[in-house]
């Protein structure tokens, strides 16, 4: 955690000079274990918005699979994935960013969708219409929304 905060701070300083563009989905650099060291936007995330993204069905809809006690104001938490309580105690920020961006880089073959991926799908569709769509698709979450979710998840500490 200490380490990744330092990296983040460095990224923010670097970004301060030129106006930073978010890292494009195809250009994300994953580490050997699927983590992403630097913020996708060069900015810190907003945990409050991250909470909203996670519980809103039409945005992240993370609670459809995960139970999160801190989000219990929203109904119907699923059981397909593990509870995210205490997730900040289990993972470094870089790893959490990697999981939210493309969980398959951390957990090969996982059911968890990749939230910042735009190409390489089988029968890509236009959102939930059932109609065909051309790749690249818009990513499920924007770079800033990913950072917001990461910032929220890093508040889920039980220690």
């Amino acid at each position: 955690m200490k380490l990744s905060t330092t990296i983040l701070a460095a990224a923010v300083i670097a970004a301060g000079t030129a106006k930073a563009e978010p890292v494009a989905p195809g250009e994300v650099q994953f580490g050997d274990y699927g983590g992403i060291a630097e913020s996708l936007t060069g900015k810190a995330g907003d945990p409050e918005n991250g909470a909203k993204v996670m519980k809103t069905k039409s945005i992240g809809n993370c609670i459809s699979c995960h139970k999160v006690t801190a989000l219990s104001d929203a109904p119907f938490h699923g059981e397909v994935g593990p509870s995210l309580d205490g997730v900040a105690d289990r993972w470094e920020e870089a790893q959490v960013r990697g999981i939210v961006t493309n969980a398959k880089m951390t957990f090969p073959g996982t059911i968890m969708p990749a939230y910042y991926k735009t190409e390489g799908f089988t029968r890509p569709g236009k959102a939930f219409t059932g109609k065909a769509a051309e790749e690249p698709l818009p990513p499920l979450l924007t770079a800033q929304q990913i950072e917001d979710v990461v910032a929220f998840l890093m508040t889920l500490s039980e220690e």
Partner: protein
Amino acid sequence: MRMQAKAAIAAALIAAPGLASADPDDDTLIVNGEIEMTTKTSAPEHMSDTYIDTIMSGWHFRSDETQALQMDDFDNSGMIFVDTGRAQWEQVEGSEGNSCASCHEDPADSMKGVRATYPKWDPEAEEVQTVAMQINDCRTENMGAEPYGYTSTEMANMEALIAVQSRGMPVDVKIDGPAREMWEKGKDLYYTRTGQLELSCANCHEDNYGNMIRADHLSQGQINGFPTYRLKNAKLNTVHARFKGCVRDTRAETYKPGSDAFVALELYVASRGNGLSVEGPSVRN
């Protein structure tokens, strides 16, 4: 019947106070106090390469209230459509002056056991046929009438009339011989991860049955209960309409109802229910 449902509620409350238990329950489905349904049984041999050793009807994953609606035909809204289907059965349509009844007389005799064995290989057409395809073949070839839309209300009604004649009989779909190729194709589709969410049928209905996904209790996605009356849309739903909905929910381009892909998938999914009772028309939420 009511008693059983109440007893089940009481048992559930004792087992998990204040919590809706997510596991499939152990209730028994007896329709009208007389048709005993096999709703859980050993998985067929061809599923030995999966984690599933017991196959279960979607009925086990519904609430006690929804379950009760299927235990008595007076409470089962799907039965209303069986009556409409019966009227369609008698209706003369098309250039040949025939109704279904002209050739098949009483469906209680002629259609008994039909639902249990479809989809199946038709040696004359040299293809795997679903009940819906057979219905439309009869309409176009033997009646000179227009085919029904593949997932239309008329089709669902007719399928319900045909399914109900086999209620309680075990699903027994053949997967060897000339049907094998379609079955393999269906199996491939079942495990293909589609759409932007990259989910396959197996991700939800094999790896996660019994788990909640948001407000939905995931079942094994069996089709022994089709057509299904859903409380959600208050109508009868056909197998291909359900498949289409599930594929759409992966943010994928769906396949067309009646397409080769969905016929193959239906054959494969039906075969995963070999041994469960035909329940159609069932009630789901």
